[in-house]
């Protein structure tokens, strides 16, 4: 994928949303709409949506029941940060190999790692921050005419 040049204005969040367990469909739709507007196309759009879902799912189940999602575009990269209020974790929780079908945990983050161009996990002031990034093939102005 080829990165496109963005202006500094595009560093502003495309979406900044709090979420809880009941918000997953709304959150996915919101991320989908913004990602399409940012220029993300199939199959990368489906891959990114699933990766975001898995990180959000993880935050709901293990990170205090909810969190905060920020979607941002900069320098031809679409980045989604998911912040939770759980006990925190490092990237050692991502299994190095495909989890067994019967595995209870680790599958979602492993799949997110497989699907996104980059996954980073860090510790924030209140919990963990998982950041997913995907390169954009083309960039259109938000809400603009084709």
């Amino acid at each position, binding site marked *: 994928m080829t990165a496109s040049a963005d202006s500094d204005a595009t560093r502003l969040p495309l979406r900044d949303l709090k979420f809880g367990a009941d918000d997953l469909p709304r959150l996915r739709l919101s991320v989908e*709409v913004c990602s399409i507007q940012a220029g993300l196309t199939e199959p990368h759009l489906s891959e990114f*949506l*699933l990766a975001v879902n898995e990180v959000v799912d993880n935050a*709901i*189940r293990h990170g205090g029941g909810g969190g905060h999602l920020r979607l941002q575009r900069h320098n031809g990269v679409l980045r989604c940060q998911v912040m939770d209020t759980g006990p925190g974790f490092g990237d050692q929780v991502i299994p190095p190999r495909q989890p067994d*079908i019967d595995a209870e945990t680790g599958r979602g983050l492993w*799949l997110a790692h497989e699907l996104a161009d980059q996954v980073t996990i860090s510790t924030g002031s209140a919990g963990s921050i998982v950041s997913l990034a995907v390169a954009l093939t083309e960039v259109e102005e938000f809400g603009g*005419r*084709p």
Partner: protein
Amino acid sequence: MSVPVDAHTVAVTQLRLGDHAFAHYADDDARWELLSAFCALGLAGGEKVVVLADPAIPHDEAYRRLFPDDGFADKALATGQLTFQDMSAMIRPDRHFTAERQISRLFEEVELARRQGYAGLRSAIDMAWVHEWGLDVEGVMHRETHADALFARRQYAELCSYDRRCFAPEVIEAMRVGHPMALLERPGDFDAYHSINGLHLIGDADMATRDKFGAALSKAFTDASGVGRVLLDLSRLAFLSAACAADLLRLVAQADGYERVDVLCTRFHAQVLRKLGSARIKRLMVTITREPT
């Protein structure tokens, strides 16, 4: 009143230009959520969007309900990509509704949208205007079932949303059957039905719907015991989470007594199943049936 799901039921997020869909609601949250998803995806995809909301609701209120996120769609509204209209604008210069006039006007609107550089036009129509105008339901039904030329070039999509509190159950069912597509009530919903071919899964399989998804799969295996094979049609699943995909693979792997389990799905869902280990299950045959467009 429950609304059946069947071979033409899909999720709102799967609608594309060329689609003509029936939608239904019985509360205001569902009403706006569905229309909002339809409109937002159209705007994001570079389509022109026309909203014909309930005539009793002012356009600015309809805008706030459709786009509650700060600022979203403001630019589309300012540039004319998003417009709010009354049905009277769709039949001008006539004063009385005729299906012919409305379809003719919609053809003009599609042509205009294309000339303006948009990919096409999508209309979100709350059918409350039928009552407002005192129209006979048969006339509307005739329009809904004979408008196929409007969609043939795949430059126009239409969502017709019916309030189950205002239309009789037999009208709702006739409209559901009469449209080429019918939608699940809300974005994020999941449903399933069994046919002689197997189990058909529709909508979103995620954390919220995982139990229902698993129950539908389990029932499919129970019902097919003795037959030796099961077909699971995932082609209308709009979303499949890792946990639900793993549940499916686990059930197939444990389905002793079945020689073969067929899964029909999109290329992307086949990729997800493969990443999660589908190739290691000998009885599982994955067939790609439909591509997102």
